[in-house]
Structures are given as C-alpha cells and as structure tokens.
C-alpha cells in the first residue's frame, strides 16, 4: 500500500466517522436524558435523506403524512391524559403543538414542493418533517412508559425501529435514491480531492459539536437537560418537566439524524433500510464512549469510520463484520474495568 491510498482511506474514514460521530452524540444525549437506547436513530437518517431526495425530484414524501398522523395521535394521548382535569389552555396548547403545527408543515410542503424548489428549502422541509416525527415518537412511544426499566424502553425502541422501517418501505419504495449535492465545488490539496460535500460534512459536524457544547454548557434549558440526566428526581423537584427534557432530546436526535442523512445521500445511494446499519455504527461509537462520554464517542466514531474504510479496502466482504467486531473487546474491557452498577430505580 502506498501513501496516497492510505491518505484516501483516512480521508474516507474521517468523512464517514464524522457522520457516525453526529449519530453517536445523539444516542448518548438521548440515553442520558431518557434512558432510551435509540435504535430508530437510523430511521431518522433514512427519513431525512429520502424525504430530501424525493423533494428534490419534486414529489411530496409520505413522511409528511406520517408526521400529521402521529401529531393527531399525540393530541389524542394528551386529551386522554388530561381527561380528569380538562383545562382549556392546556388543550389549546396541545392542539397547536400536535395538530396545527404538522398541518402547517403539510401545507407548506405541498405549497413549496416542485422540481424547481431550491435545495435550501428542500433541506429545511425535510428537517421540519423529521423533527416533528421525532417529537411525536417520544410522545407516543416513550413518554407513557418513561418510568419503566431500560430493558422495557429498549424493547419499545426496537419496536419503533421495525415500524418506522416498514413505513419507510411504503413511503420510499424498495429502490434506492440519491439526492443532489449541497455544493459542486471541490478543493485539491496534494493528491487529495475534497468535494464540497465532504467539506460540508466536516464543517457541519464540527459546528454541531460546538453548538451542543454551548447549549449544554451555557443555556438554562441545556443545563436542565443535563440535570435530568444526572438526577431525575432532583430535576422534578426544581420544576423541570422530564417530559419536556425527553421531547427536546428526541427533537435534537431526530434533527441530527436527518442532517446526517441529508449529508450522505448525495454521496451514497440510500435505501429505506440503510439507516439502520449507519445508526448501528454510531451506536458502536456511543458504546465505546460508555453511553456517557461525548468526547470519547466522537473520537471512537472517527476510529469506527477509519476501521471501516481500511477493512473495505482489504477485505470488503468482511467490512461490516470487522467493524461490528470492534465492540467485543470494548465490552469485555468495560465490563472488567467498571464496577457493577445497579440500575437506577425511579
């Protein structure tokens, strides 16, 4: 192997690793705040990517109807929960949040979708749709069982993944789709060629990490989210609603997922079920980070990306096997090093 090939592989690894880093961070965030291991993270990627790709061809993706349906169901849940104390203000707020908002997104999408819609508008629409789905997913599937064990939450999470993946097949079909690149610019440094797309990947990843750091370190809402992760009862006792924290965590996760999808769909063809594998690689990074450490997760994601790039060069048939085998020594080391922790009861 010569240096040029190695540089190519490293570059490829870092580009993929940056995406895994974003997804891994989202997984750590959601787990810390809600104790949910977010298997459907991969579906957020697929939904974001394929909604964007469909919008780019001028079609309206089915996801926008899904957001509407989930919103209406969420409104029903809210009504049921509030049945003992029907307060007009609360119901109106729920109506605006769960019905009017997705209806507005639906109307906006139908209004704006077309073959000539600018890329930026398509991106914004896809993000809106997936963010709404993420929010309502928490309301429908996880908020009612928020107090249960990690295992129950994980089972619900797997269920959501299967349901969303099946719906993905309905919305996008079995054929793969590709989306238009964010920019066609390219930059050549020595033997390496950086496309505008890969630069956007790096730029957005770094921007997101900085934004998350600022959000968690310096805003009251970010601190409230951290507080919920550290001590749920303590958070409730100062008046932080754990449901609000959960919603924000899911909102961020779905946004991150959708952005990752939009970043990769111009590079590789995505199918309705591709997201799962991509999400799993982010999950490996998150596991290496112990599902708690953001910096360790980001570094591990770059490692996962590089291992993937090199193994696809040397043994492309075993690429996934090699990447997922990474998790074994990590789990062994972690279980040997860490003292046994009893699951938090609340």
């Amino acid at each position, binding site marked *: 192997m010569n240096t040029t090939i190695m540089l190519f592989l490293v570059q490829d690894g870092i580009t993929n690793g940056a995406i895994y880093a974003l997804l891994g961070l989202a997984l750590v965030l959601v787990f810390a705040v809600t104790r949910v291991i977010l298997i459907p993270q991969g579906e957020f990627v697929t939904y974001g990517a394929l909604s964007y790709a469909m919008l780019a061809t001028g079609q309206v993706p089915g996801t926008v109807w899904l957001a509407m349906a989930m919103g209406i169901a969420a409104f029903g849940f809210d009504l049921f929960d509030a049945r003992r104390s029907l307060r007009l203000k609360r119901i109106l707020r729920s109506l605006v949040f769960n019905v009017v908002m997705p209806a507005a997104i639906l109307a906006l999408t139908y209004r704006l979708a077309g073959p000539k819609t600018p890329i930026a508008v398509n991106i914004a629409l896809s993000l809106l749709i997936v963010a709404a789905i993420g929010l309502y997913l928490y309301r429908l599937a996880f908020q009612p069982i928020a107090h249960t064990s990690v295992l129950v939450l994980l089972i619900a999470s797997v269920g959501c993944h299967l349901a969303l993946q099946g719906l993905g097949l309905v919305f996008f079909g079995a054929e793969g789709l590709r989306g238009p690149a964010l920019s066609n610019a390219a930059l050549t440094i020595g033997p390496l060629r950086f496309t505008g797309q890969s630069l956007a990947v790096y730029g957005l990843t770094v921007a997101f990490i900085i934004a998350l750091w600022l959000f968690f370190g310096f805003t009251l809402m970010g*601190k*409230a989210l951290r507080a919920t992760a*550290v001590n749920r*009862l*303590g958070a409730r*006792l*100062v*008046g*932080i609603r754990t449901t609000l924290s959960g919603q924000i965590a899911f909102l961020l996760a779905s946004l991150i997922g959708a952005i990752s999808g939009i970043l990769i769909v111009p590079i590789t063809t995505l199918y309705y079920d591709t997201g799962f594998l991509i999400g799993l690689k982010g999950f490996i990074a998150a596991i290496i980070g112990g599902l708690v450490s953001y910096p360790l997760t980001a570094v591990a994601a770059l490692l996962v990306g590089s291992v993937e790039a090199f193994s696809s060069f040397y043994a492309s048939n075993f690429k996934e096997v090699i990447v997922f085998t990474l998790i074994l020594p990590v789990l062994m080391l972690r279980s040997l090093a860490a003292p046994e922790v009893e699951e938090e009861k609340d």
Partner: protein
Amino acid sequence: MSALLSVSDAHVSYGKVEAVRSVSLDVRDNEIVTIIGANGAGKTTLLNAIMGVLPLKGTTSFAGTDMALLDIEDRVAAGLSLVPEHRELFATMNVEDNLQLGAFRIPKATAAKSFERVYTLFPRLKERRKQLAGTLSGGEQQMLAMGRALMGAPRLLMLDEPSLGLAPIIVADIFRTIGELRAAGVSVLLVEQNAQAALQIADRAYVMELGEFILSGSAKDIAGNQRVAASYLGFQHEGTSGI
C-alpha cells in the same frame, strides 16, 4: 388566618402496606412546624406524598388550591418546595449551576435576587460556586440543597432530616438558618429525628409514630410532654415506660 398548607385525612401506601394513616396537619404563613418521630414512623413518606412524589389519598390544599390534580412540577411552580432526605443534587454540575436550576420556574430578573439572598444565607456556597456539587462536604451539600430550593422563592419549604449525618456545629448553623427563613417570609415544615433541636426553633409540632400522629400542639408543650421527653429527647424518668 387560613392555612398555607392543609392536609386532611391523608393515607399513603406502598402496595398493601399503609405507611401513613389518616394524618391531618396544617402549616400557616410564617410558621415553623415540625414533625418528630422515630426512624420508620412515616415522616419522610408523608413529606414525599405532600410534594407529589408518592400518591396520597386524602385532601391536600396549598394556598387555597386543591393539589390533587397537580404534579410535582406544578406544585413547585405554586411555591411548594422539598429538600429531600438524600438531597438529590446534580452531583456532576457545579454549585452555581445547581442554584441556577433551582430558579428554573421563575423569571430571570427574580433569579438574580434569589442568588443574592442564597449567597447571603450561605456565604460558603459563594466561595465554592465553581466546585462540583458531588465534591462538597456533607454540610455544604445540605446548604446547597436548601439553597437550591430557596432559589425558586418558595412560600413553604419542606425539609427532610436536614441534620442527618452532619457534625453538631454544622447542625447548629443549619438550624440558625432555618430560623432566619421565617424572617424572610418563608414557612417551614421540618421533619427531624433530632427532636430537641427541632422543638427549639419550631412554633408547633406533631409527633408521629407508626404512621399516625399521636400528639400535636405548640412546640413548648410537646417538649414538656413526659412521654415525648422519654422517647425522643433522651430524658429517662423513673417509672415511665418507653414507648
């Protein structure tokens, strides 16, 4: 004067075991009320149920509103605050962040005033404001837990065993601060095993035993009660049988 907090015929159960049975109490404005009793009497359970952490059967009202339909967060917003036995601090965050989150439900401008007030009450917290809550000493953690609760400008502060596991000199400090709270217009409902200290600063007291109130009255009367003196204050009189 009507009661700020009023609880009547409260029952709290863990499954089939009834830990609190038919308890009624009230706390008026600017009053320090204490509930004393032995370990396992149900004091902590009662406080948690009043806060909404545990389900309570019976009626509770706060500042004239029925609390049955309010969850913990609504009760905090209404001005009720609990400093729990285990303090429940945000251990991996610093003192200042813990305090800031205590003011989560109140406007920013008011929060600035709260900071001033809490730092005046507990100058030690100001010195340690950049230190992680988990690395504070037990006494400082108790101060932080109280400070965090006070940041939300509550009308009634419920304290669960604030003296637990603390050195006597710090206990004296904490109790002096509880006394100062009354001057600041905060009512206090205090649960304590350290009955002597609690009865000294309280206006009224309830004595709890096996989930029920067996005595109530002014703190002075309770302190003078022979049965209480024998079982909780550690004075053994000849001829009194321990309860």
